[in-house]
Every structure is written in structure tokens, then in C-alpha cells.
């Protein structure tokens, strides 16, 4: 059995054609109706979809600092399980990834784990404090080759700081990924502001707090002719602003998380903080607007915002609990359920939004390539006919805070190849 040469037999490519795919030496070398190769390991993928390896633009790996919740290695396993071949490590670690030292450390940890690419995101401001720019240039020039900068978890609130950051990154075609949250409008906020928060007596988090920052930042981006990415859009109003900005030719891209494509704020009625997340779950109307926007390209990509938390930070009162949900292992199934089964997106669209587009936005190398001869062999196989039940006790992540525990979801990721190496074999982590 070869571990470097594989024939994927009978899979369906995103254009609908049924082909065999030959992987040799980390590269896709042949695609044909029938491939015979005596040296190769043959994997029967009949009835499954062959996708380019998924690329996540928004992942909290928690290392360094909170290795009790997640490590680069455990997140890499969770990523492989979910069909990912690249993750983007958010900067809000401890210490913060606001200098070349930390981003290089995270990058090396990813390489050591060896299951997928870990691309560090650099902090926009020192210590995520929003006051002074971090060493953006040094991070860009480091071996981690950082191109995406974000204070995610915190909003780059000061408009002058945001303007300077947008200008500064033009030097190397970087992008600022903004966590759009007006801080004064969200002091102590716990959940979406509306009927449910009024009833539950939980401090409201108005949609406008997100939309006001998106509006400001697309205008700033236009003014300084830079590039902006909006993290985890959650509101119908935010979608409208981005649609308007794109129509004006402003260089803005946007992401939506799987959970915001499915879950709504009424889940807070249980007061179970497993549903507590930043930005918060919104309404049915917002969910529909987000799905439409992802379908029509207003929202460019799906990003997980995978946010592991230990048991004790979720097994408590709602207002004491941490914000965040696991996402890597369920992302593709949630997109399958909310976008493919509903007819809003084809598998080609899924490949675009979960692999090709995030790669373009971040400028990553050797990721996000079509399943084509000569492409790096980052490949994800999903069987769309199988269903599975999410079990928080069986996750690869070190934490268990999935909001989908007990959900039956469509689509099982069976195989993941990272640069020609099998990292998930028939649903089992290698």
C-alpha cells in the first residue's frame, strides 16, 4: 500500500463529471475516466464529491496560552476531520500574535503537527488594545509571511487607527479582517437585542453595533483605496451595506460562519451558554439574508470562527460564560444542510466559498486550487448521501463546546489529503 500514490476511484467532481483522480508525490497528476495504477492505493469514492481541500480564514487555535482548551495539534486534527487543509490562526492568543516571534512560533507548531497548513493572522494593534499598530511589517516579512491582520475578538474601533492600518498594509497587499462591533453600543451585551433578549432579561446586542462599523470601514477602505475583509457578518443590514459597497467597487470581502447560517437567537431561551457566541446568533430573517448573500456572492466565504472553550467556561451562568463555539468538524455539513440541500449553492459554489475564495483573499500559496492536473493535492472527499449525528464526546478538538450536539447532519467527510498525504482515512484521523 503506497502512502504517496493514490487513485480516487469513481468520485464526482464539482462540475458533475465522474472521474478517477491520481495523486502522486503531492500533486494531482492524472484525471481520467478510468485510471489503472498497480503501485497506488485505491480508494473507492463512488457517489462522493471530490472537493479542493477546505481553507478556513478564521480559527482560534488557543496556542500559545490556553492549551487546556485547544492546541495547534488538536485543532489540526479537528481540521483534518472536517476536511480542512489550511487554518488561519487568529491573533488573540496569550501572548498576543502582534510580533514576528509569536506568528513564527504558531507557524512552526503547524508545520510540526503536519496535518494542514497553519497560517498565522497578525494582530492589527499591540496587545489588541486598539491604540498603536503592531509590528505589521515584521510579521509580513517573517517566515509566517502574514498577510491577514485582525484584532478579532476586539474591534479596531478608533477610526484613525483603522485608517492607518488600512493604509499601511497596502505595502504588501495585506488585508485587515475587521471584527465589526461598536464597543459603546455593546457594553455587557449578551445576545441579539430583540424580542428574545427583552423576555430573557439578557443585555441586548443591537445589529446596528455591527452595521455601523461595517459602514464606516467600507467608506474608509474606499477613501484610502485599500482592502478590507469583514469577519463573521451576522445581520441583514450588514449584508445590505456590503452589497452596496461591492456595487461601488470598494475592495471588500466578507465571511459568514456556519452557525450563523443555521442557528437563531431563540436558542438562548434555554440560558445554555453553548449558544453564547460573539457576534451573537440573530433572527430567522438575518439567517435568510446571510444564506442569500452567500449564494449571490455578496458574502464571499464561509469561515468557522472555531472557538474552543473549556467545560468550566460554559458550564455556568449565561452571563459568566465565554463567547464561542466549535466549528471545524461540522462546517462542511452545516453548509451542506443550509446551502446545498436548500438549492442555494452547488458543490462548485461550496468549493469556491470554502477553498478558492478564502485562499485568494489571504494570498495563501499551494492552497485553494481546482481539482486539476498539476494542482497541489489538497483534496477533501465528502459523501453527501450519508448522515451523521454530532457527538460532543467524539470531537477531535480538545474542547467540547459544539452547539450541534445531537444534531443529525448531512454529508460525511471521509478523506482529507494534505499535499498528497492522507490526513483523514475513511473518517478516521491518520
Amino acid at each position, binding site marked *: 500500500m503506497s502512502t504517496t500514490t493514490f487513485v480516487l476511484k469513481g468520485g464526482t467532481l464539482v462540475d458533475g463529471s465522474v472521474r478517477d483522480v491520481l495523486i502522486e508525490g503531492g500533486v494531482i497528476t492524472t484525471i481520467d475516466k478510468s485510471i489503472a495504477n498497480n503501485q497506488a492505493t485505491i480508494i473507492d469514492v463512488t457517489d462522493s464529491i471530490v472537493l479542493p481541500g477546505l481553507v478556513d480564514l478564521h480559527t482560534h487555535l488557543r496556542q500559545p496560552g490556553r492549551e487546556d482548551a485547544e492546541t495547534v495539534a488538536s485543532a489540526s486534527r479537528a481540521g483534518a476531520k472536517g476536511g480542512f487543509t489550511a487554518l488561519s490562526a487568529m491573533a488573540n492568543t496569550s501572548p498576543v500574535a502582534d510580533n514576528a516571534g509569536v506568528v513564527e512560533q504558531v507557524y512552526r507548531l503547524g508545520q510540526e503537527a503536519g496535518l494542514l497548513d497553519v497560517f498565522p493572522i497578525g494582530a492589527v494593534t499591540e496587545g489588541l488594545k486598539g491604540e498603536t499598530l503592531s509590528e505589521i511589517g515584521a510579521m509580513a516579512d517573517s517566515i509566517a509571511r502574514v498577510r491577514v491582520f485582525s484584532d478579532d475578538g476586539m474591534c479596531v474601533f478608533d477610526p484613525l487607527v483603522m485608517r492607518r492600518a488600512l493604509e499601511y498594509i497596502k505595502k504588501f497587499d495585506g488585508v485587515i479582517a475587521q471584527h465589526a462591533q461598536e464597543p459603546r453600543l455593546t457594553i455587557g451585551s449578551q445576545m441579539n437585542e430583540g424580542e428574545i*433578549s427583552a423576555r430573557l*432579561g*439578557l443585555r441586548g446586542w443591537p445589529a446596528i453595533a455591527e452595521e455601523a462599523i461595517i459602514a464606516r470601514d467600507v467608506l474608509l477602505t474606499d477613501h484610502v483605496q485599500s482592502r478590507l475583509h469583514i469577519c463573521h457578518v451576522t445581520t441583514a443590514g450588514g449584508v445590505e451595506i456590503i452589497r452596496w459597497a461591492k456595487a461601488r467597487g470598494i475592495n471588500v470581502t466578507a465571511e459568514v460562519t456556519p452557525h450563523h447560517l443555521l442557528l437563531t437567537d431563540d436558542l438562548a431561551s*434555554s440560558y*445554555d451558554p453553548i449558544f453564547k457566541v460573539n457576534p451573537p446568533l440573530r433572527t430567522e430573517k438575518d439567517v435568510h439574508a446571510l444564506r442569500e448573500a452567500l449564494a449571490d456572492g455578496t458574502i464571499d466565504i464561509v469561515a468557522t470562527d472555531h472557538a474552543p472553550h473549556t467545560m468550566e467556561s460554559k458550564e455556568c451562568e449565561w452571563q459568566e460564560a465565554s463567547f464561542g463555539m466549535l466549528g471545524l468538524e461540522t462546517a462542511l455539513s452545516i453548509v451542506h444542510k443550509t446551502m446545498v440541500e436548500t438549492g442555494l449553492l452547488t458543490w462548485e459554489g461550496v468549493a469556491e466559498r470554502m477553498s478558492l475564495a478564502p485562499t485568494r483573499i489571504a494570498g495563501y500559496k499551494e492552497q485553494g486550487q481546482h481539482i486539476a492536473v498539476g494542482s497541489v493535492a489538497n483534496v477533501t472527499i465528502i459523501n453527501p448521501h450519508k448522515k451523521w449525528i454530532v457527538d460532543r464526546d467524539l470531537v477531535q478538538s480538545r474542547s467540547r463546546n459544539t452547539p450541534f450536539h445531537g444534531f443529525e447532519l448531512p454529508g460525511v467527510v471521509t478523506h482529507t489529503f494534505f499535499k498528497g498525504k492522507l490526513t483523514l482515512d475513511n473518517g478516521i484521523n491518520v
Partner: protein
Amino acid sequence: MRHLLSISDLNKSDAIVILDTATELARVSDGQVKKLPTLRGRTIVNLFAEDSTRTRISFEAAAKRLSADVINFSAKGSSISKGESLKDTAMTLQAMGADAVVIRHSASGAPQRLADSQWMTGSVINAGDGTHEHPSQALLDAFTIRKHLGKGGPDLAGLKVAIVGDVLHSRVARSNVLLLNLLGAHVTLVAPPTLLPVGVESWPAKVSYDLDEVISQVDAVMMLRVQQERMNDLFFPNAREYSRYFGLNSQRLAMMQPHAIIMHPGPMNRGLEIAAEVADSARSVIVEQVANGVSIRMAILYVLLAGAPLEAGSN
């Protein structure tokens, strides 16, 4: 019914059973302290993670009059203030064999977390959680209203009640809106727009910004406490202006119908939401509300704990 977490746990007949039970208990005791053997051998824990001497004493008196063993577990000096988790506290209570936990907590939903968790099996009674609900207060308010204004029927059909003040942060208001509506009363919320929650339009209540317009129409007016910390949080310009537009003073008292009563869940800010002479007037039933609290809480404990235990999971 296993827990009392929210007024929405009650249907109309549940609420009336509690009011009727309290009526009988209040009548028999007739002011004297009588001890009933009803809950002998049962353990009730008062878990007060937030200071509230009046509510705690009221529940404690109610439990003791029903012969339950009462354990007070209050914030000061307890492990809660030392950062022990709700889960650990609950498991301690379970180990102590608590049949019921009366919980006061600064976090909305903390009682529901206790009730829904597998951490403990006893009944959970919400004695006020954050800015969510305070069902026993609403029941004693309804009891007081029925006693003074009830037309002989078991409910409050057709009565008009104004709830005035900081609705946004008030657990008393949330529980009262639900219960008064359940019992057939018409509720009008009166507050500056800043102190009404976004989404209030989905509540079964009318909204007014004008106390003078409402005050002459209602049978009962319920004044809510204005917390000191709201003063500096941009909800209104200053105390004087709040008091001028939303305080109950003697001019407004004069506008009220002759039979109308004045209520306040306490503690009052005299001179802010209610003038001293109004609080002490013959129309005020504020002191009586406190007395009625014990009967209502006895009735709640009776209804939740006296009957045969329900199957696990039913509520």
C-alpha cells in the same frame, strides 16, 4: 409543576390555586405565627447569591411555618462569593439532600440553569434572577391586588394596572406583565423610552411615555425602583427630571381614582420614584405587600413540594 422559574411556567388555574391557597393560609393564621407540619422533614435551601434580606427572610419564614428545615446559603462569606461555580454549589446542595432550592442570583437564567442541569434533582424556585423574572413577587402583587380590587372572581379580569419606571432592568415588571395578563388584567407600562427594552412591543402590555395620561385611568399603580447606577448611565438627564415626569407625587395621587391602590416592590427611593407622603398615604399597600409575601411563598412551597413527586423531567 416541579419548578417555579418564570410566570410562563404557570397556567391560569395554577396561578389561581396559588392565590387561593395563600388566601386560606393568610386567613387561618390571621396575623399570628402558626406552624403547620406540612413540609416536616423536607429541606429547603435559600441560595442567595445576591443580597436581598427581605426576600430571603420572607422565604425563610414561609418555609419554617411549614416546618421545613431551612438552610441559608447566602452570598456573604459563602463559597459563591469566592468564585465557586454554580455547578459546584448545586452539587453541594444535592449532597445535602435539598428538596428545594430558593435561588436569588444576579445572572438572568441562573435558576433555569440549575433546574435544567443534571447537577441536582430538587425543585428550583426563582427568587429573582438578574433582569429576568421574580415570580413570587408578581404572585404576591396579584394577591394584594385581588384582595383590594377583586370583584369576587378568582382572577383580575378587567382591572387596569400601570407599571411605572425602569422596566428595562426590572425582573418584577417582567413577571408582573406575564401574570397580570394571565389573570385578565390590562397592563400599561409607563417609562421613558430609554428604560423600555427593544422588543417590548411583543409583550402583552400597552406602552405609554406619559404618566399623567395613564394615572387617572388605572385601578392600581406599581412603582418600580430606580437603581442608583442608572443615574450615570444616560438613561435620563438627572434624578430631578426623572422624578418630575415619572415620580408618583401628591399631585398625581390626587388624579387617581378613589379606589385605586399604590404598590412598590421595595426597597423604595423616597423622593425619587415615589414621594414620601404618597408612600405613607392611605392608598399605599406597600407594607401589606411585604406581609402578603409570606403567605404567597408558603403557597408556592406547598404547591411545589407537598404533593407526590412527579416523574423526573415533567414540569
